Each structure stands twice: as structure tokens, then as C-alpha cells.
């Protein structure tokens, strides 16, 4: 255990983390998986800590996952669903930060529609801030659970070929995965219609496939991103039906793959749009494992960030006798 792998106060994204820090979280998540298998799914590690789930965007699965993680660590949780009004979004965030500070909250899990919101909050309050998704910027705990799932299935991440498929332009999950995967030595590619791929992505060391068939030919793992109805409404693609016909991850396409491909999806799935039901429910899908790992990874993150003063590192190394 060395100081370089400690995480600092906040978890806002993977872009500036070191590979050691990422591995620390994955390694710490393993024992937490076991906690979720116990008859009493609770350990007292975060007893007495107050955690606020501050969700400015509607989200059921991520919030529930965090809530389970918090409660299984014996923390006290408060859910705040604040819908950001268009006029005063910025004002709301600053005032919210000040109010949380005044209430002496220990940790905040924040999801917000503006990129940079988690960092904005983390710079203004002493509480630990965990990014549960900020705008199109990052969703670090999702990427971490994706990495853990890949590692469990393949035994490693280095050298694996992972392709992110779909609306990469608007996806914070894609960005976080990109950082995490490249830092741990995987080869990363993106695949989708050109209207949904971000500028400059090749400069980040990422391959670009214009057709799903090329991606399937190449990849060991496909992480299929959710396509939002909005994209069709804003004109990025003509219709969901065409998207499925051209880019859908279907059994027929996968049958032509040179090797078995692990299928992942951050959820919730649009069955019949970006992914076939038979693929999502098939033998190579690890989508449900992602969900299980999600709670463990979030427990690991909360555990690693909570409290703790750096000066007392030695006691940790030797353990109490």
C-alpha cells in the first residue's frame, strides 16, 4: 500500500487518474462482492457517515446502486432529486454546495446535466464528491464496473480489444471507459455513424470503425451504448429503425465474428434498437454481472474515499493486533 495509490478527496473522472489508482479500486471491489453474498449484507465500515445522493437528472438504476452500496456500508443516506431548471441551473449548484457544506455532509454523490459539475462542486466543499455522471463528461463508477467485469471475464485488461458502439459523441460512459481502458493497456475502438463520433477522437489513440461489421471482426469485447430517442429528434440519425438495420448488434452479425465476443451494455437497454434481445440475454452477455459489480465498485469507491488521514498510514500497513 503506498501513498501514490490513494485517491484524494473526490472521484470526478478517470482522465487524470493513474493506472495504480484504478487498479486499487478494482482490487478493493473484489472483497465487497463477497459482502453482497452474505446473509447480512452489511458491514459497519461507514457507520455514522452521512451521504447525500444529489441527482439533478432522473436516474433509477445508478441511484439505487449507490444507495445499496451506501447502506451496505452502514452509512446514512439522503436522496435529493433536484430537477435543474433551465434558468437558474448555475445558481442552484453554487447554493446547493454552500447548503451541503453548512449541513456538514460527509460525502456527496452527484449526477448533473452539465459537464464539469462534479469538479465544480468538489472545488467548493470539503465533503468527498463522487461523480455519478456529469453532462457528457464522465461517469467514472460505470467505467470502473465495466473494467471489473472485463477483468473478471477475461482475466486481464491489457492487450484486449474493446470497442464502444453507438452514440459516443454524447456518452460520458464512453469517455470514462476510454480513459480507463487505455490506462490499463487495452486497445480501444469506437464504432457508430459519423454524426455520433466526437472530433479529435483518433488523437486519443482510439481506432475508428464506420461499420459495425468491422468492429465485430476486430473486437474481443463490445460495449454497446444506449441510443437515445432524442438523437433522432435532433437529426443525428434519420430513424431508430435504420440505426438498428445498419448498426444493431444482432445475432446474425455476431455469428460471423471470428471469435466469441463479450457483450456489455451500461443499461437501460433499447432492445431492438442498439442490441438484439437474444444477444443481450445470450451466453456471452455479461450485462447482469455489470449490475452486480456496480454495487461492489461503488462500495469500494465510498470505502476508499471516506475519512482517513494520510499521516496515519503506518497503522494501516501493520494492522491492529
Amino acid at each position: 500500500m503506498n501513498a501514490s495509490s490513494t485517491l484524494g478527496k473526490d472521484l470526478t473522472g478517470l482522465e487524470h487518474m493513474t493506472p495504480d489508482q484504478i487498479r486499487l479500486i478494482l482490487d478493493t471491489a473484489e472483497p465487497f462482492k463477497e459482502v453482497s453474498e452474505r446473509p447480512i449484507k452489511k458491514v459497519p465500515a461507514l457507520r455514522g457517515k452521512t451521504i447525500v445522493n444529489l441527482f439533478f437528472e432522473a436516474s433509477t438504476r445508478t441511484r439505487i446502486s449507490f444507495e445499496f452500496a451506501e447502506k451496505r456500508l452502514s452509512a446514512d443516506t439522503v436522496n435529493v432529486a433536484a430537477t435543474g431548471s433551465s434558468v437558474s441551473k448555475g445558481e442552484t449548484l453554487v447554493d446547493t454546495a454552500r447548503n451541503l457544506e453548512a449541513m456538514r455532509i460527509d460525502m456527496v454523490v452527484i449526477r448533473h446535466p452539465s459537464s464539469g459539475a462534479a469538479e465544480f462542486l468538489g472545488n467548493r466543499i470539503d465533503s468527498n464528491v463522487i461523480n455519478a455522471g456529469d453532462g457528457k463528461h464522465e461517469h467514472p463508477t460505470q467505467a470502473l464496473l465495466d473494467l471489473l467485469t472485463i477483468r473478471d471475464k477475461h482475466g486481464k485488461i491489457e492487450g484486449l480489444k474493446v470497442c464502444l458502439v453507438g452514440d459516443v459523441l454524447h456518452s460520458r460512459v464512453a469517455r470514462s471507459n476510454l480513459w480507463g481502458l487505455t490506462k490499463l493497456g487495452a486497445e480501444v475502438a469506437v464504432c457508430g455513424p459519423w454524426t455520433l463520433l466526437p472530433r479529435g477522437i483518433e488523437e486519443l489513440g482510439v481506432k475508428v470503425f464506420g461499420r459495425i461489421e468491422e468492429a465485430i471482426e476486430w473486437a474481443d469485447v463490445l460495449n454497446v451504448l444506449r441510443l437515445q430517442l432524442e438523437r433522432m429528434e435532433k437529426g443525428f440519425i434519420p430513424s431508430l429503425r435504420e440505426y438498428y438495420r445498419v448498426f444493431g448488434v444482432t445475432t446474425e452479425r455476431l455469428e460471423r465474428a471470428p471469435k466469441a465476443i463479450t457483450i456489455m451494455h451500461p443499461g437501460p437497454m433499447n432492445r431492438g434498437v442498439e442490441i438484439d434481445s437474444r444477444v443481450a440475454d445470450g451466453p456471452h452477455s455479461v450485462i447482469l454481472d455489470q449490475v452486480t459489480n456496480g454495487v461492489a465498485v461503488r462500495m469500494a469507491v465510498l470505502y476508499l474515499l471516506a475519512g482517513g488521514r494520510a499521516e496515519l498510514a503506518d497503522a494501516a500497513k501493520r494492522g491492529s493486533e
Partner: protein
Amino acid sequence: MPRPPKAEERTTLLDARAMSRALQRMAVEILELAHGTDDLVLIGIQRRGVELAARIARLIEQSEGAAVPRGALDITLYRDDLGTVGPKPVIGETHIPGDLTDKHAVIVDDVLYTGRTVRAALDELTDFGRPKRISLCVLVDRGGRELPIQADIVGKSVKTGRDERVDVQVEELDGRDQVDVIR
């Protein structure tokens, strides 16, 4: 100019043979305490307690011809100092063999000192079920209790000060069997 670190003074408390003899005696005492192996379960505390529990289980197996269920317990998440310790400690494996109800669980650890580890282990164990009895078996009791906790079976007792450390090495992890007191 900083002073050079004080040289460590190592005094060997148990060498390999002494440790082996102690473990053999502890195995016998456990059998007496548990009245045989029928409802006996050995739970080793990470990390060296796990290795010692494995040795004791083998000794019991050899003498009784019956396998003893073994478990491992990592008490990190139940520590009472998690809020103040620095970078978080690594969490080891926890594995409890089956249901503990109506079992006699014997906790095995290498050193008993303040008693806080055992306190954490008791809390954690009871989250897994309700054994009919829990006993404590340690290789070394070094005194210095901060909680009202005692071991039922002790390999070796020694009185030590706060400035001393008891270092237990086991073949499986450290390459040799030895117990030293370090000042």
C-alpha cells in the same frame, strides 16, 4: 544531521521447533474444548491466523481422521479505527464454510494484544449467524489488553511493552516459522 535509526533488537520467542510443538498442543486443547470434531469450525483471522488455522486443521485431521471445516475472516471493515487510519488497508478474503448455527467456532489468530481485532472478529462473525459457542485460540498472548477479552487457548504467553512488537513469521508467507519480540 539526523540521528541514525536505532538498531532493532530481536529476541526469538519461538523457533520453528518450539512453534511446531506449541501448535500441536493447541490442536489437542481445541479438541478437548470442543469435545471432538463434530461441530468444530476453525476460523482464521487474515492473514497469518488463516495459515495457523490451516496447520491446526491438518494436525487435527491427522490425529482424528476427520476433516475440520475451515474459514477465513478479514476484519478490516469492522475495525473501530477506519475513520482515522490513513490510506485504506487492503481487504483480504472472507469465507465462512456453511451455516454457523449450532457450531462451535474457534477463532484462530497469531497474536492477541489489545483485543480490538478479536472484538471486530466477534462482531463480524455474529453477522454470519449464531454459533452455539465461540472460542479464541492464539499462538502468542503478549498482554496489553484494552478490552475485556481473553483467549481460551494460548500457545505462548509473554509480557511486552508498548514500544515492542511481536513478529510472527510463517513458512507459507514468510519462508520460515519463527516468533520474535522486537524492541
